[in-house]
């Protein structure tokens, strides 16, 4: 089967980007919107077709989903073995991601037609969206580490451009900068990881790297070698993978590289939905999943790191989310928390068969999360569109004004809380099962997070749609069709995505296995979620003074949490005070006043000497004669009497 056509999925957005980007203002807004949407729509259809072809027709050989290289060219050669190829790999996770990305992207495109209507940079926005779609699609189909790195950077820059979309707003500029630099820093780790890995293995290629033998070991001998070399207590392969994970952690906003994500909410809401909720931020998860065989088989230490980082981030973000008032920030922390969940799931997973439940769960949750979180964001966008504010304090009782938004948002809320029957319920359940089977502390954290998630999401939901009656300047109204249709579509997915038998398609080793529903996990966790929702109901469903009281009672703790544990401030201190003020300034000073001064010093010394010997040329001819004589005599003295032959 020739899968070359999959190239079109990726290239269509690129062409769109170039077309809209280059024509820019000479293209009518409407046309740009339609073009963008149409192109991603086509991509979406192609992705669906691909998925069908892959999962149901050609992908499975001998009961195992194959990795199919649909297309590849050598883009840049480093050495005979090391070269960057650009290509399309089709395997369960990439096909799954193709679907997720195109779906969400399409929804966001449609939504944006309404949301961004009348904006000055409407065309620019669409071209950037296309750029992002292109980059993200390129990332997920990457055949090798370096291609991934390339598109990794490209999604980074798209994210930068889109966060900074309102470039005249200083906070947006700052946020975009922060996002880019933080992820860039993480990418440094990624890059070094790649270098380290490739130095030993001599390849970037995923297929070669992750090739496993029948008995579940890696075929690459170099990786075994790397496992044998120890550096500071960890094997080199672990180091390499931890470094690579650092890149993933940066993109996926894992602690402590998460600081950019809340600020990234400065971007237009559709962007938040697409990039900072559904797709780009899960790239880290995808990266770990992509290299999962190595993590699981050769570098369990690295995988443990992944697990703990995931678990901690998940808890950390959930706690912060409980205190935030900005609707998008709550969602942002929620995203971080959920991605932590996915990481955690990967971390507790093993390779192969049912042991790979965590892997499957993680991918499953990735998919469902993409749907309901995109929905949440788009819903939030719809709300913001109506209220012209991001603050939950400015909202309340919106259910009356915006019924569609209310219902779809409600579905998403239930999905994320793990309400039985909705998508989140199933994916979360699998994660919890995987955690329980492998690591009890992590399982406990996961359960707590589940409860917290239910709490803060309910807090959000109640205070926006119920709660106090707020006086609005303009009566909020439901958003236009272009915005509500995507909401409805996504709501559909949020409900039913959970019913996909994921373990049939996406598994750690490509072989399908059956999952069982674990009531012993599902029931208690669901109960905990209900408790969370219940508390939120009590506190926020109606106007209540309890939250204020609680806040007052726990003042110190609350402030700390509200300020996100002051992580931002620590970063600010390190970057502004230390790196900028101390390091950079002193280097600049050193350069001017030491190195440059030394160079100028040569000139100064020359001038000084020139000035101090001017007396030699006194104008007195007799002195000249004296010097003459002395010169001759000195040479006579030297060469007759001092230099012995």
């Amino acid at each position, binding site marked *: 089967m020739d899968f070359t056509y999959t190239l079109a999925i990726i290239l269509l957005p690129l062409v769109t980007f170039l077309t809209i980007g280059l024509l820019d203002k000479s293209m009518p807004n409407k046309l740009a919107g339609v073009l963008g949407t149409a192109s991603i729509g086509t991509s979406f259809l192609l992705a669906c077709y691909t998925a069908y072809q892959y999962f149901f027709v050609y992908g499975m050989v001998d009961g195992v989903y194959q990795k199919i290289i649909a297309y590849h060219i050598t883009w840049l050669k480093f050495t005979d073995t090391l070269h960057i190829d650009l290509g399309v790999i089709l395997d369960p996770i990439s096909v799954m991601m193709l679907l997720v990305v195109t779906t969400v992207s399409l929804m966001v495109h449609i939504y944006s037609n309404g949301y961004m209507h009348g904006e000055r940079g409407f065309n620019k926005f669409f071209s950037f969206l296309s750029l992002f779609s292109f980059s993200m699609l390129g990332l997920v189909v990457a055949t090798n580490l370096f291609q991934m790195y390339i598109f990794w950077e490209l999604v980074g820059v798209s994210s930068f451009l889109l966060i900074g979309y309102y470039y005249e707003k200083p906070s947006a500029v700052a946020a975009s900068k922060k996002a880019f630099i933080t992820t860039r820093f993480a990418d440094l780790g990624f890059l070094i990881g790649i270098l380290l890995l490739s130095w030993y293995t001599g390849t970037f290629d995923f297929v070669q790297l992750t090739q496993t033998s029948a008995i579940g070991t890696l075929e690459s001998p170099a990786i075994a070698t790397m496992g044998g070399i120890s550096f500071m207590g960890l094997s080199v392969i672990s180091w390499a993978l931890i470094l690579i994970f650092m890149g993933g952690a940066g993109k996926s906003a894992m602690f402590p590289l998460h600081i950019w994500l809340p600020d990234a909410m400065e971007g237009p809401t559709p962007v938040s939905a697409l990039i900072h909720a559904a797709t780009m931020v899960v790239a880290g998860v995808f990266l770990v999943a992509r290299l999962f065989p190595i993590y699981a088989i050769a570098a369990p230490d690295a995988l443990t790191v992944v697990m703990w980082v995931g678990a901690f981030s998940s808890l950390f973000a959930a706690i912060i989310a409980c205190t935030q008032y900005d609707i998008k920030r709550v969602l942002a922390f929620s995203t971080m928390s959920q991605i932590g969940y996915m990481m955690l799931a990967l971390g507790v997973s093993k390779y192969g068969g049912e042991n790979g439940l965590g892997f499957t769960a993680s991918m499953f949750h990735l998919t469902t999360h993409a749907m309901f979180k995109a929905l949440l964001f788009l819903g939030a966008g719809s709300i913001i569109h109506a209220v012209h504010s991001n603050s939950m304090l400015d909202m309340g009782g919106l259910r009356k004004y915006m019924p569609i938004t209310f219902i779809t948002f409600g579905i998403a809320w239930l999905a994320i809380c793990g309400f039985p029957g909705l998508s989140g319920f199933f994916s979360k359940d699998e994660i919890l099962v995987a955690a329980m089977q492998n690591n009890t502390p992590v399982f406990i954290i996961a359960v707590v997070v589940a409860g917290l998630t239910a709490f803060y999401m309910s807090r959000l939901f109640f205070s926006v749609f119920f709660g106090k009656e707020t006086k609005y300047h303009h009566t909020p109204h439901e958003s236009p069709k272009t915005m509500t249709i995507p909401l409805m579509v996504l709501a559909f997915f949020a409900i039913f995505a959970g019913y996909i038998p994921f373990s049939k398609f996406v598994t750690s080793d490509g072989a399908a296995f059956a999952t069982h529903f674990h009531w012993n996990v599902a029931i208690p966790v669901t109960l905990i979620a209900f408790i969370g929702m219940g508390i939120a109901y009590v506190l926020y469903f109606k106007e209540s003074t309890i939250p204020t009281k609680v806040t007052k009672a726990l003042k110190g703790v609350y402030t700390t949490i509200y300020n996100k544990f002051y992580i931002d401030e620590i970063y600010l201190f390190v970057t502004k005070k230390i790196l900028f003020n101390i390091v950079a300034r002193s280097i600049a000073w050193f350069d001017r006043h030491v190195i440059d001064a030394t160079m100028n010093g040569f000139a100064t010394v020359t001038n000084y000497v020139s000035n101090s010997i001017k007396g030699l040329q006194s104008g007195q001819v007799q002195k000249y004669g*004296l010097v003459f*004589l*002395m010169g001759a*005599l000195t040479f*006579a*003295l030297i060469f*007759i009497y001092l230099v012995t032959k």
Partner: protein
Amino acid sequence: MNVIIFYILAAVILVCSVLTVTSRKILRAATALMFTLIATAGLYFLLQVNFLAAVQLMIYAGGIVVLIVFSILLTHHMEHQFDLAEPKKAIPAALAAIAGTVICISTVLQFDFTSRLAEQTTAPDVKLFGRAFLNYGEGGYVLPFEVISILLLAAMVAAIMIAKKNKQ
């Protein structure tokens, strides 16, 4: 006899030389110079190079000293007494001169002249000089003789050029 004459001449040369460079009256210095030059001519006579002695007397003692005296007359009041050389200037100069003397004399004395002393044949007479001046072959000096005339011409013209006043 010769020895005594030599030492007298040497004494005159040295004393008058010193006077030439130290005398505070310029005419006195010129006179001392003249005596030095004459004593030199005497030395040449002693060495039996009569032609040279004659040249020395004519050109040096006769020509140059007269020239110098003329110029003195043109530029000086006779009574004018020079100040003594200030030590700042004299001491380094004296030291340099002494050093030079020491170096040169010691170098000269180190050299083995004795083995090179030649048998004396005839003393060079005017005829010999005359032949040499007009000979253009081996051992002839017609070329420098002619060339020096260019110098003299040039010197003359040069002196005129500097001294000459504009016509108008």
